[in-house]
């Protein structure tokens, strides 16, 4: 906790300075609030409008968590299949990269046309943005297992399954967590984008309503909520990493 404070005060101070500059600039230049509201007004709106906002927030949290979970599972399964079956890896891996080049903004409305306004197209969008970093990170981890460890395992008679469970999977965990961190933050973005398409509630819906009625302060409330959520998700993954990869944290603590 003290460590967090020691590392965190610098960016916090920069952020605070930024807000003060913003507040002063808006006041001095007399920018109208619908164009750019000062930070204090945004905070006031967040507090007074909390009742109207909280159920949107809750809905987005649920959606991103669910999407992230599905994305993680699919990402992992894809990585394992591609790793264990080199033939499939060679034929499918380039296509995976292509899947990331399809703009989600374009794809999303299509998904609605195909699957309606339910939760399914939203989950597909989140999964699409989430699974790729996990697959790539896990695959890299699997493949980077040191030759000497692999050689020992094979000489000692490890089967293909044992090689995977006792060497490649544990070895790839740190790399896998790098992928999870990226995906965790993407999942919030993915959820908001999917909500733009048409949903009953969620930060995306709130944002669309706010911007079409020139409630710029509310748009900023939504933006900050998204940033905060991403940060929280990231922190959650960091915590899980600390708990799961104890040997690594002890190693770096010694250095």
């Amino acid at each position, binding site marked *: 906790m003290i460590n967090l404070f020691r590392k965190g005060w610098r960016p916090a101070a920069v952020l605070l300075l930024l807000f003060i500059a913003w507040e002063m600039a808006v006041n001095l230049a007399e920018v109208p609030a619908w164009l750019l509201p000062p930070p204090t007004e945004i905070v006031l709106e967040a507090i007074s409008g909390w009742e109207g906002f909280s159920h949107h927030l809750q809905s987005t949290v649920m959606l991103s968590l669910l999407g992230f979970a599905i994305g993680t599972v699919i990402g992992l399964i894809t990585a394992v299949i591609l790793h264990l079956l080199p033939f499939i890896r060679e034929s499918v891996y380039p296509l995976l990269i292509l899947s990331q080049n399809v703009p989600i903004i374009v794809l999303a409305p299509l998904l609605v046309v195909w699957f309606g306004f339910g939760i399914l197209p939203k989950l597909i969008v989140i999964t699409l943005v989430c699974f790729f970093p996990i697959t790539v990170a896990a695959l890299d981890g699997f493949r980077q297992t040191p030759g*000497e*460890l692999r*050689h*020992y*395992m*094979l*000489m*000692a*008679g*490890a089967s293909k399954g*044992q090689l995977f469970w*006792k*060497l490649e999977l*544990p*070895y790839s*965990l740190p790399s896998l967590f790098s992928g999870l961190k990226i995906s965790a933050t993407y999942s919030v973005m993915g959820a908001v984008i999917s909500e733009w398409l048409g949903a009953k509630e969620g930060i995306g819906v709130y944002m669309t309503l706010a911007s079409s009625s020139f409630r710029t302060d509310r748009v900023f409330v939504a933006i900050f909520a998204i940033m905060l959520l991403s940060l929280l998700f990231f922190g959650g993954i960091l915590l899980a990493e600390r708990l799961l*990869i104890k*040997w*690594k944290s*002890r*190693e770096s603590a*010694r250095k």
Partner: protein
Amino acid sequence: MIQLSVNHLTKSFDTNQVLDNLSFHVNEGEFVSILGPSGSGKSTIFNLIGGMLLPDEGSITLGNVKINGKRGSISYMPQTPSLMPWRTILQNVLLGQELMGKTDSEAARKMLQKAGLGGYENAYPHELSGGMKQRAAFIRALLSPQPIILLDEPFSALDELTRHDMQKWLLDIWNEHKPTILFVTHNIEEAIYLSDRILVLSSKPAKVIKEYKVPFNRPRMEELYLNENFLACKRSIHHALKNH
């Protein structure tokens, strides 16, 4: 009784012949060293016995079973400790047993205690010194259920003092458990100090140019290094290597 026997092994990679009609055997409870210049195909021999490679000709038998290309028939200690960084020392030394089926953590604890690694059961490999890691790697090999241990230049990466300690330690452990050991090294003194029998290899393609029975009784003490006969042994092996 013959434990491991290697019969007329020949192996080439493309046009590069590494082994030429190589034959030798290791008796049960015997400590045999393979001594040869670097690049003489020592690792190829191990990879063949370990089942990682198939010989072009010849056979390898363990007990009376042919083990050409059968992985997991022998217990192995590589040049680097090759401990899994996410496993504690106890979990690491049990790995060999784990791969073959049953683990016995009580025996492992006892052996760690005797090996001077007591109190480190729950430490991770990076918390140990180089010599301690090699001890753990040897105990892992010793605990594995296979009847013969292959050691691949296990002390070559250690400094001189640690190496001497480790050799003495290895002899102590060997005296107690009498496992069958096939030891690869390029260090003549090490081979004489440790083994019952030394097989001197030629450079590529490798074959046994001299088989040397080490005349010293066990248990051996460190003073042996300075013994006249020890030096005579060393000279004779050195000549065999040079003259070839």
